[in-house]
């Protein structure tokens, strides 16, 4: 065996990985991929016979592979060398990563929009939709030719058949040259994009926009697209947001200190710092604002926008439809505000049924 350098190297590599996997403490979550990782499953005879234990062990070996992030990046680099630009269902165009949107479903948009219309009808309140398109829709020239993309304008028109849709897309289109309205490595809109969304929402809500405050800037932001396709050498983004100081945040009834999570800002998924990530019910309070309540149904696209809108209302109550389990009609009727603003990424509307599945609709 001594004269088998190749065999010994490969076996050594595998054994080294095995030992580190067994000895090193398991990681709870992958910040890069933004998901929970499988832990070592406890052995049970039943689990072995049914195959569940085996499946979990296979998943554990993959999830807890030592140097996993390095291996994932190596795989992305390999795909890049082969000229592939659609790894991890993200499409690369130069320094930008885009969502592959050919699987988006008009039916899903229709059902969610219909549910919003039903909410308007059952509560007697005005419900309008601020749907944020994806970066590919605003910067099509950066997307590789003939990429599998969906027509987002058509999806917005589909939604508009059911419910008033705020004219966000034209506003974004007229501002797209001035500044990048989206992050290159993340699916969210940038600080500039959020400003456009803010003015659009103000116009619809009859508010006059307040001047922009000095924004916070955090370089080295690698977002969700990057997590799915961590291409080595891709420059990071700078996370930009401007949060007013006189707005207070409480999550599921518990008051937080400040509007963002300083711990998350130090991690990979910096966007999760905004409003401490996504929660079923949050409330923003602004004592200096006049009376009034704004009710919001949201996904994470609203997290950078709500603090700006909060300056105009004493209360902003926001429900994340993906986590909310109570009856939405009863919930909305508890509040006096006459408008329900739905702030959603078009992606979320077109790939899931979170609004449609809300209790009470």
């Amino acid at each position: 065996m001594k004269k088998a350098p190749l065999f010994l190297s490969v076996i050594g590599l595998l054994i080294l990985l095995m030992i580190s996997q067994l000895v090193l403490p398991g990681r709870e979550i992958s910040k890069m991929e933004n998901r929970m990782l499988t832990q070592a499953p406890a052995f049970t005879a039943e689990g072995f016979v049914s195959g569940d234990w085996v499946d979990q062990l296979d998943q554990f070996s993959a999830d807890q592979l030592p140097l996993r992030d390095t291996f994932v990046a190596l795989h992305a680099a390999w795909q890049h060398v082969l000229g592939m630009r659609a790894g991890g269902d993200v499409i690369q165009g130069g320094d930008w990563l885009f969502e592959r949107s050919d699987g988006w479903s008009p039916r899903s948009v229709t059902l969610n929009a219909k549910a919003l219309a039903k909410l308007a009808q059952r509560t007697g309140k005005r419900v309008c939709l601020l749907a944020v398109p994806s970066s590919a829709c605003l910067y099509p020239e950066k997307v590789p030719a003939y990429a599998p993309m969906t027509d987002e304008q058509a999806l917005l028109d589909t939604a508009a058949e059911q419910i008033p849709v705020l004219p966000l897309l034209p506003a974004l289109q007229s501002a797209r040259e001035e500044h990048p309205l989206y992050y290159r490595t993340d699916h969210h809109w940038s600080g500039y994009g959020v400003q456009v969304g803010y003015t659009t929402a103000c116009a619809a809500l009859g508010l006059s926009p307040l001047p922009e405050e000095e924004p916070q800037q955090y370089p080295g932001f690698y977002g969700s697209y990057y997590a799915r396709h961590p291409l080595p050498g891709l420059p990071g983004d700078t996370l930009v947001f401007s949060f007013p100081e006189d707005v207070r945040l409480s999550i599921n009834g518990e008051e937080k200190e400040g509007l963002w999570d300083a711990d998350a800002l130090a991690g990979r998924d910096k966007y999760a710092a905004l409003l401490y990530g996504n929660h079923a019910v949050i409330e923003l309070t602004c004592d200096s604002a006049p009376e009034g309540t704004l009710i919001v149904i949201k996904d994470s696209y609203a997290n950078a926008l709500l603090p700006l809108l909060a300056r105009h209302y004493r209360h902003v109550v926001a429900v994340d439809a993906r986590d909310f389990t109570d009856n939405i009609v009863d919930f909305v009727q508890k509040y006096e505000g006459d408008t329900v603003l739905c702030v959603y990424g078009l992606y979320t509307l077109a790939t899931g049924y979170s609004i449609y599945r809300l209790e009470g609709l």
Partner: protein
Amino acid sequence: MLFSSLTFLLYFLPAVVLIHYFLPQRFQNVFLLAASLVFYAWGDVRRVPLFAALLAVDWGVGWRLGQAKKPAGHKALLAVGLLCNFGALLFYKYSGFLLGVLGIGAGFARDLTLPLGISFFTFQAAGYLIDVYRGSVRPERSPVAFGTFIFLFPQLIAGPIVRYGDLRDALHVRRRPDGRALDSGMALFAAGLAAKVLLANPLGEAYQAYRALGNDMPGAWLSLAAYSLQIYFDFLGYSVMAVGIGRMLGFTFPRNFRHPYAAATVTDFWRRWHITLSGWFRDYVYIPLGGSRRGTARTVLNLLAVWSLTGFWHGADWTFLLWGVWYFVLLTVEKFLLRDRLPALLHRILTLLGVMLGWALFVSDGLPAFWEYLKQLFCFRFDTSVLFWLREYAALFLLGVLFCVPKAVETMKGLARRFPALRWVSAVGLMLLCLAALARSTYNPFLYFRF
């Protein structure tokens, strides 16, 4: 357990190969048998008793068949042995289909899941019994050695189909492969794993991306090309991994593929594709039926029998049966009508086309799906959306085609032999790339669950 899972790579493979290496001879077979049982039980523990029972029957029948004085009812004994094996195969693999054709008992059949590797297991055992019956090998006396031969994990679930005669000597010596065997075994294993993980898996994604384009003729043909490459590299990868692991354990497994897409004729293709299976059908079905020695009509009949069975072996559905018949037609036309009348290049191209159209049948889930695919392949519609995917997978295709060219592969092998450092770098590099792909990828299918 699959070779391309991290559990296998990180735990099973190093542990088994190293422990086996250092064990004294009397424990080597029993250890390998136990390891193979764990390997098999990993996916399907409930089937182990079935396989153990078959193993006992095969060993007993073989032993009895090999008695020096031929026992009375020699033939009947062989029949019983074959019946047990093919009966199990028939029951688990084909009863659902056959009952469905008859229109009865569909519910009963739906609950039967196919035990992994049963087609390989039973064929290997049946071949052994026939060999012993014919007197071409002496029966294995030790049940442990026999179990090791049949159950040996490298070839248990995806071939190659090994003859007892090929392994007999290795089963009865202290297996201690030298440095050269260990190195070349590991290099082969890394190459096979790369064929599966770095070529076949992404080619499978390419197939799906092109298929998703629907009615687009170039897309449909690209999907067929992608699938043709996927199934080759997948199957090749498993076989080469088996040969590599076998070598690290001190066994020599037969080669299962020899550049099939470089075949000059369809006959030639089947001398290069899944060689151990076509060899099995040749030796145990075609030649006993008389082969080509009993006149044209009988030869055609024999071919029909062999190729229907070959098709049906790959899965219990009309599509597989038709796939076999398709080869019967191609081979008959080639043998009796064309002979050598076609220009060589044209014959080569037609062969490749015939093989690819065969895969369209093979990949389709039922005849209606095949008909849909066929319509797409000849829809004469063109869409620009194929262009993105064409560029996306262009390099992968080139790589795949390159590894189908015998000269290219042989040159690479020659270089690896001449420069050990180059082989070291390639093997370690491929292993790292495979680990990277496995760490992330969710698409890692096992294609032979219907075999």
